[in-house]
């Protein structure tokens, strides 16, 4: 196995006194889709948000342990958050395009970073939208408000927006849970395409989704990783009884 692109070790996270993550040790491989599954409140989102330090925003969060991105400890005080988040992009549950035109949405990150060259921007817009498999649907409406598109299209625009800043890793927190099945399927197909160039870590409540698209699956419970393995193994013959119960829908 090659060196992982992101890995965590002994990661503990506390919200105030409440320990939300316990000794998480996970390693994610490049150009794979990894799924994080587990019951509500088990810490999936919390963990995901550790990977690009989105938890820093929250009051009273204490994090110990290591999160390494390409062997670099991202929690070292010197880390430049802004650049880190450009390397590790994030897509959220609710499609959240900014209330601007599609074009502006895609170029926002770049323009704020100072890119001005119109031609370059145009190129990036086209490339990202194509990668996010939404180019055909929006190419004639680049200057329309991004909010005027359907939920599934919006989510793919959000993905394109992240792609535009050329991240290495894309974190996704339940990116399809707000969408209807057809839109979800479109997003899933997009992810499968993106896998060639990006590393994707996705939180999902939809076990079928995890099984369909991910290469590896981590099963969280009460802030711990119960099992982390090839998705096939997890759904065919997991080692842990709890995993088996969970993936076979035998909850509670």
């Amino acid at each position, binding site marked *: 196995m090659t060196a992982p692109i992101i890995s965590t070790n002994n990661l503990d996270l506390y919200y105030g006194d409440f320990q939300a993550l316990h000794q998480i040790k996970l390693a994610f491989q490049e150009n794979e889709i990894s799924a994080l599954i587990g019951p509500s409140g088990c810490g999936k989102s919390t963990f995901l948000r550790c990977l*690009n330090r*989105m938890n820093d*925003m929250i*009051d009273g969060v204490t994090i110990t342990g290591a999160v390494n991105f390409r062997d670099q400890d991202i929690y070292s005080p010197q880390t430049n*958050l*802004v*650049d*880190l*988040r*450009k*390397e590790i*992009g*994030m*897509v*959220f549950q*609710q499609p*959240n*395009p*900014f*209330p*601007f*035109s599609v074009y*502006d949405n895609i170029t*926002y*990150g770049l323009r*704020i*970073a100072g890119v001005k060259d119109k031609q370059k921007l145009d190129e990036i817009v086209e490339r990202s939208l194509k990668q996010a498999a939404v180019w055909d649907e929006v190419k004639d409406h680049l*200057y*329309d*408000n*991004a*909010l005027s598109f359907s939920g599934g299209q919006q989510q793919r625009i*959000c993905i394109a*927006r*992240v792609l535009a*800043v050329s991240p290495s890793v894309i*974190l996704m927190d339940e990116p399809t849970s707000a969408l209807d099945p057809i839109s979800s399927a479109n997003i899933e197909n997009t992810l499968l395409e993106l896998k060639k160039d990006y590393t994707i870590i996705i939180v999902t409540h939809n076990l079928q989704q995890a099984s369909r698209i991910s290469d590896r699956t981590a099963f969280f419970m009460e802030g711990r990783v119960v099992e982390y393995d090839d998705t096939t193994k997890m759904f065919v013959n997991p080692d842990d009884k709890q995993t088996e119960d969970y993936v076979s829908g035998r909850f509670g």
Partner: protein
Amino acid sequence: MNRMQKQSQVAMGLLRAIAGFVVLILAFLIGYIFITGLPNISWKFLTSPAKAFSAGGGIGIQLFNSFYLLILAMLISLPIALGASIYLNEYAKDNWFTSTIRTAIEILSSLPSVVVGLFGFLLFVVQYNFGFSIISGALTLTIFNLPLLTRNIEEALASVADDQRQGGLGLGLSKYETIIHIVVPAALPGIISGIILCSGRVFGEAAALIYTAGQSAPALNFADWNPFNIDSPLSPLRPAETLAVHIWKINSEGIMPDLTKVSSGSAAVLVLAILIFNLSARYIGRKVFEKMTSMD
């Protein structure tokens, strides 16, 4: 039809009647202001200076003063309110300290404007020796306006979904960049309508200005736009009676023979101006949103 449904229909009728009655009151009020006021409005009325004791005075200077004061007050209060509301809504932690600040701001907003006016009088007019002047008035209006504006802007900011912020941060923008480039633009329609609604209130405010911007409207030299000249319309150090103050003054002290006409005409102009503010609030808010969403 059963009893419940009958009851429901009676209640609906009652509610309609109440709404109708309220509309009637409102229509009466506005109608009263316009019917008594509009006939007195003429171009001359709108442009000529007021007369203290003879008929035929206009409200030109007062009208100009009102707008000038409003613009100044907004220029001063907007950045402060924006900064403060950004801090409150985006940076401040939710603890007793911020809630104290909020309470304090709200107290300020529900303080009678007379009190604010007197405070402004003692502070700006007397203490800082700005005299009865536009600048004293503008600063006092700022105090009067800040809490409301801050509140409005904060509401507009708060109505921007957290998703948007996360989207910004997730794209690698710094928090401040996210606020400036995403949250504020997204809240802009709300901010603008907040500003314009506040403008309406400021425009109609009298009590806070009586002791600060003063109750006299010396003649202006509209050919002189040098703010350092005392008779320049732009001079911040000249006293400036506004329209609302004018209405108040002629009703309390006026000795001109046509004072009811002037007063009702002024009231109608004021209400018209506020009406225009409100309409433009909606229009500009919508336009800005459209603009922003398809900027090219």
